[in-house]
């Protein structure tokens, strides 16, 4: 059953990438919302307090990271549609021919 071997090999990679992007980005998003609430203070939190601007800044920075992740996903869809592939060879993603 060579197929089982290939499938398991593919599966753990998909699981790793899925956990990193599919659970990691939502985690950052949740942290962003937490920071915004921390920054807004008042009735945004269960135990209301005064506003803290640092939280607001951190929150939007986290959202920016999430947005970058989403843009990476979009680039991947568009690039593979045109017969290109995303390469992570140089750590940062770049578009190469398939």
């Amino acid at each position, binding site marked *: 059953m060579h*197929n*089982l071997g290939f499938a398991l090999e593919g599966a753990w990679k998909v699981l790793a*990438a899925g956990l990193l992007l599919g*659970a990691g980005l939502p985690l950052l998003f949740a942290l962003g*919302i937490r920071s915004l609430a921390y920054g*807004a203070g008042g009735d945004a939190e269960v135990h209301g307090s005064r506003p803290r601007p640092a939280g607001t800044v951190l929150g939007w920075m986290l959202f920016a990271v999430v947005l970058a992740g989403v843009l990476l996903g979009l680039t*991947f*869809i568009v690039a593979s549609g045109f017969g290109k592939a995303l390469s992570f060879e140089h750590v940062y993603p770049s578009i190469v021919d398939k």
Partner: protein
Amino acid sequence: MILALVVVTALGFDFTNGFHDTANAMATSIATRALRPKVAVLLSGVLNLAGAFLSVEVALTVTNAVVRIQDSSGTPKPELLAGGGGALLLIVLAGLVGGIVWNLLTWLLGLPSSSSHALFGGLIGATVAGLGWAGVNWNGDGSKLDGVVGKVVLPAIMSPVIAGVVAAAGTWLIYRVTVGVARRFTDNGFRWGQIGSASLVSLAHGTNDAQKTMGVITLALIAAGDWTDTGSVPFWVKAACALAIALGTYLGGWRIIRTLGKGLVEIAPPQGLAAESASAAVILASSHLGFALSTTHVATGSILGAGVGRPGAQVRWRVAGRMVAAWLITLPAAAVVGAVMWWIAHLLGDGLPGALAVFVILVAAAAGMYVRSRRAPVNHDNVNDEWEDARPAGRVPAGAAS
């Protein structure tokens, strides 16, 4: 003439593919009311249209994963081309009818089954009937993940589990992190995250699924001698497929949306975000790694995972069990329909009368199931009604409708 029937049937399949899979992307956003139902299907339809046009790369060899009717370059096998390609067209037609009939039946029952499995099942059945067991690529040639086992069976078992684990982890983390933040505040934030992630799933669906039909239609055109280039797809085919899948998506398979959005778990916005992010990540990562999988299986696994990951959430395992049962029989059931259709056409002489008969059977079956669905309609008005376990779940999903 047979070619015209094949093209129309293929577009019909693309259409059912669209409405069958609207739920994968939009069920969670509709269930949490992040988007109004009509807006959600419109957004998903537009993104599917865009996605279908984005797929420039040719998917001409789509059938090679499961059956042996083409060479690796996409050219049909020469022995099937005798007499204007009728033999190949008949197999494709019977296979498509098998896929459509199964898609419509599962839609009627409100079950999210895989459209790719239905298509592959239909093709496998028609090929076994037409060419014998050796016509099917069961296990690949050992050099890579291939064949019915490698491209269909194994991914189908693994992908829901992977997606479920990712979504459960995401949900658990989100609920941990947002403890102490006011509910009103989180719900509004997660609403946007949900819309964004669901849009990614819709776009990815358009690029993946519309391509399969484009490949099948182009294969038929080549077999009939109306197209020779194995390196590209005629523009009208691309446009027609894109429109068919987008229209199907916009029509919305409300029955399936209801099962996925309300039947499995009661979804809150943070769970919706986790589920759709998990789906998007798993779909994109696997297509990047060449690991073929079904959007439907991933989406369902994600939603289940989001239910498991939230402390204290209720998962309706009976509904999940019915879905798994539907997945298991999708491939063989569509194969049986495909095979029967091929034999009917064969008995009528392999030519136009046979093809017409099969087409008429398809239209009759589709009309019959549509009429049956009108008895308990599910639409954008009642898609979010409370789920009642007392009724046979899914079979009469609109029980609460007025």
